[in-house]
């Protein structure tokens, strides 16, 4: 079966279109990154703007794994905790929640099935090791299915132990509260998106509001999987390069860009949510090509300060919403309990006609 340079079948959603950087330009970029690795602390503290620009231009494929480990500083954690990863893998059965471990096993063959690395037993086993170690690392956090494609993406670039530590950094520092029970921070970011959109695409935002389209329906997969299931893989890696330096603001810019590029001028073709949501999933190469999306992301002036300000407002809003949900839920349970009491007292009157059931005729 033919695959692209990342091992994705050419017909699959993630397959990348060729976008070749001239050989000499690539060599130059590689030597620049190698120079930075040698004096990483110096560059991070004194020349971080240079690192930012180089992440924006795209990290050379051969050095991407190392660059992600350096950008997230996970290499320090890895050095500080030798052997911990292997211990966690060995003890996962004892420490991790059994439900998480069985969910991990179920997802192994459902993570990038169109990629040759994970179509293979060995690739899946690496994935299992990293995910079980993560589930054991913080059993109360456990396993969220969206972690699997991210870990798989990391494994395409680095050994299992390094992938584990990069993921620890993502879970704890880049996207805390994104994957844990309640998905609180993810909800906050969806809310922030909703507040930012009107300033970049007022008509689109107004249209979404008028038809009752909620950003989270679209954003959940985009944000939680760092776009690696949404964009051609080469473009997703470029977004992740920027994310590794800038953090979640990169995801916000990518989401705004995709929404505007897709719907900016054609939103009124979709007059109901039933048409709007599926259309948002159909992103053509004219939008998702890295030569289009990445420059567009940088044309949007989204400021970190602005996000921080909106963060407070949306956190408050989500908390209120959660409180309202909890209240509604307890009221619902109470109503149910009262209803059950009533039905028990009139037990004799029900249950004479069984509900119809369709069975297989050959049974």
């Amino acid at each position: 079966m033919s695959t692209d340079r990342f091992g994705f079948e050419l017909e699959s959603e993630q397959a990348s279109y060729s976008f070749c950087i001239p050989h000499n330009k690539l060599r130059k970029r590689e030597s620049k990154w190698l120079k930075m690795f040698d004096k990483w602390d110096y560059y991070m503290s004194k020349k971080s703007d240079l690192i930012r620009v180089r992440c924006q231009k795209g990290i050379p494929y051969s050095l991407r794994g190392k660059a992600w480990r350096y950008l997230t500083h996970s290499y320090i954690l890895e050095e500080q905790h030798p052997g911990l990863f292997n211990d966690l893998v060995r003890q996962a059965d004892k420490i991790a929640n059994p439900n998480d471990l069985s969910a991990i096993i179920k997802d192994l063959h459902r993570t990038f099935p169109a990629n040759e690395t994970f179509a293979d037993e060995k690739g899946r086993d690496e994935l299992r090791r990293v995910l079980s170690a993560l589930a054991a690392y913080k059993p109360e956090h456990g396993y969220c299915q969206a972690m699997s494609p991210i870990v798989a993406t990391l494994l395409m670039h680095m050994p299992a132990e390094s992938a584990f530590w990069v993921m620890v950094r993502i879970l704890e520092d880049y996207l805390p509260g994104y994957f844990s029970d309640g998905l609180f921070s993810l909800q906050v970011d969806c809310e922030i998106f909703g507040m930012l959109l009107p300033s970049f695409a007022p008509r689109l935002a107004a249209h979404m509001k008028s038809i009752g389209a909620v950003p989270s329906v679209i954003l959940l997969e985009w944000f939680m999987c760092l776009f690696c299931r949404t964009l051609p893989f080469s473009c997703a890696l470029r977004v992740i390069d920027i994310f590794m330096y800038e953090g979640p603001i990169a995801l916000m810019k990518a989401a705004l860009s995709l929404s505007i590029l897709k719907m900016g001028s054609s939103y009124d073709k979709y007059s109901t949510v039933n048409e709007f949501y599926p259309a948002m999933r159909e992103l053509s190469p004219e939008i998702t090509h890295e030569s289009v999306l990445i420059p567009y992301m940088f044309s949007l002036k989204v400021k970190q300060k602005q996000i921080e300000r909106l963060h407070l407002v949306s956190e408050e809003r989500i908390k209120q919403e959660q409180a309202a949900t909890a209240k509604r839920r307890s009221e619902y349970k109470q109503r149910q309990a009262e209803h059950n009491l009533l039905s028990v007292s009139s037990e004799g009157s029900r249950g004479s006609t069984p509900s119809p059931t369709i069975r297989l005729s050959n049974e």
Partner: protein
Amino acid sequence: MVTIDEEFDMVIKLVLIGDTGVGKSNLLSRYTRDEFNSESKTTIGVDFATRTIQIGKKKMKTQIWDTAGQERYRAMTNAYYRGAAGALIVFDICSLNSFDSIGRWLQEIREYGDPGVPIVLVGNKFDLKHLRQVPISTAELFAHENSLKYIETSALLNSNVESAFQFLITEIINSFSQVHKDIQECTPLTFEDRSDLSFRRKCCVIN
């Protein structure tokens, strides 16, 4: 919610819910594209697919929302239930755990969905009946106690998949017809032939 569309006589939204790995995505792909993939990717959030059916002289578009089964996504899924005309709650007949969750899914749809939304309970993976953990009688009893219809399917063998959806759509039409007498003439339900797909529909016994 049933909406009237210019191109279609009716558009209805259905949701597929149930634990992770019970086969929701394959029921959907079997129903809408007559495809089964043992290595379909995990659903994260929601996926959409549509199929057009013919009911009497009316053309109906069914839009199906295939939702993620992992419990923690429930924090963000209320939007999925809004406006759904019906739901299929799916469990795996070889997984007692997935059957035990049905009560919670039922609560979820009744809480966030429209009141009285028709629901069909689906026991999937009938092809693995030698590994069955949920006896038919148990599932039937549960369905009966909760006033649901129950049907067993195999997305792999293409058994009863058509019937499961047909069953739900019939329920929806019936409840809708009570409100809008004008489409009562539409029953009995006949589904358009999909000449591009060659598949045999299994016969069913309704008891």
